[in-house]
C-alpha cells in the first residue's frame, strides 16, 4: 500500500525528472554521435569537463546560462578533438573515446586544482533555482512536479523534440543518418561525410557537456572530483536501449531515473533488512534486462564504428 502511494507521489516523479535530466542531455548527445556513425566513449570525460568548466565560469562571475554555454563550448572543443581523431583519421573509436575520457577528466581536475589550489571546503555558487510557483501550480499533480524542476530540465525536454525533428525532418538530420548508415552513399551525393560526422560529434559532445554542467549548476552548487559517477556510461547503454531514437531515449532516461529514485526510497522503507548494495544494483540490472527484451529489434546504424576513408574499401 505504502508502495503504491509512493509510486503516484509527485515527489517521486519530480525526483525522477531531476535524476533523468543529465541523462537526457548525455543520451541525446551520444545518440547524435552514434547516428552519424561515431561511438563516443569520451562521454564520461566530456560530462566531467562540462561540469567543471560550466561551474568555473559561474564561479568566476558569469551568469548561469553563460555557464551552460561555456560548458557547451568546451564540449564542442573536446568533440572536435574526438571527431578529428575518429573521423578524418579514422582511429579506433573505442580507444579514442576512452582516451578522451581520460584526458578530459584529468585535464578538468588539473585545471580545477590550478585555479583553486588551496580550497579545503569546495567553493560553491548559487545554482538554478526550482521554478516554484507559476501558472502550472494550477494543474494538481503536474504543477508540483514542474515546480520542483529547474529551467535546464525543461530545456532537456525541449531538446528531445528538437533533436527528433532535426533528425527526421530536416536535410541536415537526413545527412547525419545517412553518414551513419552508408557514408559512401552520402559521399556519392556530394555530402561531406567528414564534415557531417565532425559536426555531429561536436554537437553531441556539446550536449553531453551541458548534461555534466547540469550537475554543478542545477543539481548541486559545487564541483567535485569523481562527481560523474558513471552517468556517462549509463547514457551509452540508454542509447542502445532507445534503439537510437530520441523519444525512446527520453523514455529510457526516465525509466533509469525511476529505478534510481525508487531504489533510494525502497532502501529507506525496507529499513536495512537487505544490503543497500542490492538496491544500488537495481537500476543496472534492470537496464540489462530491458536491453535483452529490446535488443532483438534494435537496428544499429550500419556504419557505427566504421571509419570512412574516401576511396578505400
Amino acid at each position, binding site marked *: 500500500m505504502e508502495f503504491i502511494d509512493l509510486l503516484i507521489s509527485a515527489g517521486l516523479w519530480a525526483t525522477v525528472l531531476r535524476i533523468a535530466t543529465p541523462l537526457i542531455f548525455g543520451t541525446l548527445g551520444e545518440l547524435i554521435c552514434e547516428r552519424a556513425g561515431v*561511438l563516443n*566513449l569520451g562521454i564520461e570525460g566530456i560530462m566531467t569537463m562540462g561540469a567543471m568548466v560550466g561551474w568555473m565560469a559561474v564561479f568566476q562571475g558569469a551568469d548561469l546560462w553563460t555557464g551552460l554555454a561555456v560548458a557547451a563550448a568546451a564540449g564542442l572543443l573536446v568533440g572536435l*578533438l574526438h571527431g578529428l*581523431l575518429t573521423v*578524418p*583519421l*579514422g*582511429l*579506433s573509436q*573505442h*580507444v*579514442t573515446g*576512452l*582516451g*578522451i*575520457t*581520460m*584526458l578530459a*577528466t*584529468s*585535464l578538468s*581536475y*588539473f585545471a580545477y*586544482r*590550478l585555479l583553486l589550489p588551496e580550497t579545503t571546503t569546495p567553493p560553491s555558487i548559487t545554482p538554478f533555482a526550482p521554478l516554484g510557483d507559476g501558472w502550472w501550480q494550477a494543474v494538481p499533480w503536474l504543477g508540483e512536479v514542474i515546480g520542483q524542476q529547474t529551467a535546464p530540465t525543461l530545456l532537456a525536454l525541449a531538446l528531445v523534440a528538437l533533436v527528433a525533428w532535426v533528425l527526421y525532418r530536416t536535410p541536415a538530420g537526413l545527412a547525419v543518418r545517412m553518414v551513419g548508415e552508408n557514408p559512401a552513399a552520402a559521399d556519392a551525393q556530394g555530402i561531406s561525410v567528414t564534415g557531417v560526422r565532425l559536426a555531429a560529434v561536436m554537437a553531441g559532445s556539446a550536449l553531453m557537456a551541458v548534461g555534466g554542467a547540469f550537475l554543478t549548476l542545477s543539481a548541486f552548487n559545487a564541483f567535485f572530483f569523481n562527481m560523474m559517477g*558513471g552517468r556517462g*556510461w*549509463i547514457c*551509452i*547503454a540508454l542509447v*542502445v536501449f532507445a534503439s537510437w531514437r530520441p523519444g525512446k531515449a527520453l523514455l529510457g532516461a526516465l525509466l533509469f531515473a525511476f529505478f534510481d529514485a525508487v531504489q533510494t526510497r525502497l532502501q529507506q522503507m525496507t529499513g536495512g533488512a537487505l*544490503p543497500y*548494495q*542490492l538496491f*544500488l*544494483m537495481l537500476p*543496472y*540490472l534492470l*537496464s*540489462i534486462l530491458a*536491453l*535483452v527484451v529490446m*535488443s*532483438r529489434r*534494435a537496428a544499429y546504424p550500419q556504419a557505427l564504428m566504421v571509419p570512412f*576513408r*574516401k*576511396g*578505400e574499401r
Partner: protein
Amino acid sequence: MRLERRAETPPLLSVAVPVLALLAAFIIGTLLIMISGASVPAAYAAMAEGAFGSRFALTETLTRAAPLMLTGLAAAVAFRARLWNIGAEGQLYGGALAAVWIGTAPLGIPDTLLLPAVILAGAVAGGLLLLGPAVLKTRFGVDEVVTTLLLNFIVLLFVSMMIEGPMKDPMAMGWPQSETLPMAAELPRLIPRTRLHAGLIMALVAAGLIYVMMTRTVLGFEMRAVGASPRAARFAGMGVGRVMLLVALISGGLAGLAGVSEVAGRTGYLTLDMSPGYGTGGVVVAMLAQLHPLGVVLGALMVASIFVGADAMSRAVGVPTYIADVLVAVSLLCMLTAMLFARYRLRRG
C-alpha cells in the same frame, strides 16, 4: 586531402613514429608544466628519475605494468575476435573476489595447492563474468559494449556487498575489506623490500602463451577468423558461437588474473579501491600494441612508466598530481595518431 594506405611501412618510419609521438606528447606536457609554473627541465628530470632512475623506480614501474599487461591481453584477445569487452575492470574485481574466497574459506586445500587454486579461481570467475555478455551477444544480439560496461557497476556493488557482508574481515575493525590471504596463497616477491611480485611473471607467461595461441593454434586461427568475418568463419565450418564463448572465457579469465595478481601479489586482501582503472588501462594498452600479444607487454611498460614517472614528477616540482593521467592520455592519443601515419600517408585527391 585524403589518407592512402601505404603498401609497406618504411623501416625508418616505424622507428621514427614512437619517437615523434612522444615528442608531441612532450610538447603538450611542457605547456602544462609551464602553465603550472614549474621548471620544465627539472620536471622532466624528475619524471625520468621517477620511472627509471633507481631500482625502486624500476620495480615500481614493473609492478604497475603487470596488471596492465593482463588486462591489456584481455582486451587484445577479445578485440581480435571483435568482442568489445569494456568490462575488464569488473572481471578484475570478480577474479580478485574469487581468489580471496578460495584463499580464505575453510576448504581444506593443502598449502602447496593453494596458490594454484587461487589463480584458477580468479581466472574462472573473470571468464564467467564475460561469458554472460558473450551469450547475450550471440543469442540475443545484445550489444556487449553496453552489457560489459553495466556489469562493471554490478560487480563492484557485489564486491562491496561481500566485503561488507559475508566476506568481511572480522579483524578489520569494521572497515570493509576481505580477509587477508594466507602466506601460502600469496605470489612471491621477486625482489625483497620492493613491491615487485610474481604477478609480473604470470603476465609475461600469459603474453607468451596468448601469442602462441593466436598465431600457432587452430583455436587462435578460429578466433581471428571469427573476428574478421563471422559469416565466412561459419561458412568454413567454425562454430562461431562456441569460439565467441571461448574468447570470452579467455579474455575474462585474463582480466580475472589481473585481479589475482593484485590481490595475491600486492595487497593481500580485497578492497573496493584496489584498481586505479586497470580495466580501461588495458584497452589503452591493447590498442597501443595494435592487439599484438607481445606488443601488449611493451604497451603496458610504456603506460606504466609514463604514469609512475609523471606521478613522481608532480610531487617533485609541485604540479597538481592529475598531470600524470593527462600525460598518459596525451601520449596515448599522440601514439595512436602517429601509428596511423605509419600505415597511411596523406595524399591529395
